[in-house]
């Protein structure tokens, strides 16, 4: 079958971060989106850090060429556009929030910002700090989901974090943390996955998942392609050959 994948870093195995790291580039071949190519004809439109709006625009242009659509729905509130730096050629970079804008402003990798690129990133960063409207961002996020469903009722909408759309891809991570015997103490109102992201930093993970998790996601993706309706049964505990600190380091 001819499959299209839209989404963010959870599906983008060719993320530019991998481009700058031979090890990560190699590990990209273990991601669910890469492995899916062994079973189906896959076009992967995902981009790390991109917004739902950015994916929606690609989807509007291209979905009709594909038999099935897997849409990894990123979290709300990202910068709608993506950025391109003159120093990194035609690579596109998503901006997830003020921290990532700040990160790019620090000239990481081979990025060398021009004055205009710097002004744009500063404006994007300051927007999040000073002027954002969460209510508006949530509303527009829902509008985009409605639009995807309207254009393509058979699209599989898969959130990165569990929400009203269904089980999120980050649930696999939570099961792994349980498998490592971790208790994720959550402040009231905080999702467990936020605790993981706040306290742990992935080491050598591509698309935020371990190889074991990628295989489980792949299995669930293969099922949903044959039997529409994303509703995976994720084991409560996922066990790995290696301990937690092989995959994550604790943030300071």
């Amino acid at each position, binding site marked *: 079958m001819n499959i299209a994948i839209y989404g963010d870093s959870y599906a983008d195995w060719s993320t530019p971060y991998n481009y700058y790291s031979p090890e990560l580039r190699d590990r990209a071949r273990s991601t669910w989106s890469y492995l899916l190519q062994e079973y189906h004809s896959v076009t992967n439109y995902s981009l790390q850090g991109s917004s739902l709006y950015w994916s929606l625009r690609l989807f509007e242009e291209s979905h009709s060429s594909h038999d099935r659509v897997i849409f990894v729905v990123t979290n709300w509130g990202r910068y709608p*556009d993506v950025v391109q730096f003159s120093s990194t050629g035609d690579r596109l970079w998503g901006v997830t929030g003020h921290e990532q804008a700040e990160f790019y402003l620090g000239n990481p990798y081979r990025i060398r910002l021009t004055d205009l690129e710097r*002004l744009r990133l500063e404006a994007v960063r*300051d*927007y999040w*700090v000073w002027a954002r*409207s969460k209510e*508006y961002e949530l509303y527009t996020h829902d509008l985009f989901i409605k639009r995807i469903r309207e254009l393509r009722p058979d699209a599989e909408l898969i959130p990165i974090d569990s929400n009203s759309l269904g089980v999120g891809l980050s649930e696999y991570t939570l099961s792994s943390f349980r498998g490592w015997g971790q208790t994720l103490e959550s402040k009231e109102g905080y999702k467990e996955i936020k605790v993981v992201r706040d306290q742990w930093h992935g080491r050598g993970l591509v698309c935020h998942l371990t190889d074991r998790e990628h295989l489980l996601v792949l299995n669930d993706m293969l099922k949903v392609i044959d039997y529409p309706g994303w509703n995976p049964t994720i084991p409560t505990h996922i066990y790995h050959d290696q301990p937690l600190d092989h995959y994550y380091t604790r943030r300071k």
Partner: protein
Amino acid sequence: MNIAIYGDSFADSSFKTALESWDPVPTAWPTLLGLEHNVKNYSRAGTSLYWSYKQFLSTHLSHDRVIFLITAVGRWPNPIEDLCFGNSLEALDHHIRSVDPGREDLIKRLSVVRDWYVWARDYSYEQDIHELILREIVRTRPDTILIPTVGDTASLRGLSPITDWARASLFSLTGDSRWHDHANTPPLLTELRTSCHMTPEANRSFSGFVSESLKLGAWSSSPPKSITHSEPLSYYYK
């Protein structure tokens, strides 16, 4: 009929002009429409389509009919503080200059919004959101009479914007045909005795068209080419 009006300064009867002593309310088209119908006007100058849409969602069910003036694409969705909407660079610059210098927090927020418009905005995004909100209005209330204000809403291109009435009156007052040319208008004039950005005569004409549209159930799309005025240009504009 019990009618709700949603929109920006083109429907905000109380929107003031440069002439302090001028009361725009009596000659504004929503006021004139109120002579025939029971009108509730939710419009506010400078607001975004999103802001009006929120008023619409919470109130439209109380009204028999809805008139929705579709404002320009790309306005800041919510007021930056109270009535301070960042609807253009000029407006933001004006607010930045005129707020109390002690309000550093507000000045910072206004400056950040300004920088967003200058360096980071994505006009395609703003257009797409605009169109999607418009669909939601129609989906929620299919009998809504949609009237464009400046004509930059792609899906409403076939409909005459309210600015065509302002253009018709300026053409009548100046004899300058460039007022009919959307791409090549003469320099803007400062409004003195106007309401909703139109002369009282243009408001009367526009109110008549709105009345007719309420009977037809859709916005009529044939604005007048000229509008007769009782006073010269200098009475209305500087």
